[in-house]
């Protein structure tokens, strides 16, 4: 009997401890895509609009808007948001490729997931070097 035809009247054991199951790399890329997106919505967008508005007012206001980014906390916030942006963009491009049926087999999907993670860390490192 095929799995889909089996009656489901008797309760089956459920084991869904997400922290105990070893997640495959594409699953990690997927959840990080979500987390980075949510973080940019909550923190990134208001911060971006505030920055553009205040930095355009005058040379003094430009310097004042830049000032928080020379503190350790400001640099960390900027670095995390920069990673979110770069990572989200790269994972998004991978997603578009998958939509076009490019690299959907298991092995290339794993490779591209690893590539997205590695490339985003590399780009974030470049941002970090520029910041410090």
């Amino acid at each position, binding site marked *: 009997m095929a799995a889909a035809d089996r009656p489901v009247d008797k309760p089956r054991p459920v084991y869904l401890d997400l922290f105990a199951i070893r997640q495959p790399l594409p699953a990690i890329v997927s959840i990080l895509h979500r987390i980075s997106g949510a973080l940019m919505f909550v923190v990134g967008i208001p911060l971006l*609009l505030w920055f553009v508005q205040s930095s355009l007012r005058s040379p003094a206001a430009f310097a004042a808007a830049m000032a928080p980014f020379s503190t350790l906390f400001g640099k960390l916030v900027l670095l995390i948001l920069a990673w979110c942006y770069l990572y989200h*963009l790269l994972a*998004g491009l991978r997603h578009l490729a998958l*939509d076009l049926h490019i690299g959907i087999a298991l092995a290339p999907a794993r490779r591209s997931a690893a590539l997205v993670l590695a490339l985003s860390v590399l780009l974030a490192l470049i941002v970090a070097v520029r910041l410090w």
Partner: protein
Amino acid sequence: MDKRSVGAHYGLRDWLSQRVTAIVITLYTALFLTILLWNGGMDHATWQALFAGDAFRLATFLFLASLFVHAWVGVRNILMDYAKPMGVRLALEIVVICALVAYAGWTIQILWGSR
């Protein structure tokens, strides 16, 4: 035979707008990084001259409007998965919509308002 399992096509429309806005965001990001590298950084005079141009203002508006639509689809997807009680989800969706509409107003004020 034309087989349709759903009638309203909300899913397809959101799926498509998520991808179209993603492409607009990617293109603007490439443009912005090119400008940044071209100028070898950014000072206030260059920054202000950049935002004085109508084409750049329009491009920035298109970018931010795309960002808000993109954020709406993404956050709504997250809420559909994790905010299960209908009332809670609806309340959160209203908060998100209000925030994004307010951001759109703020964007217009930044780009075309008096400084």
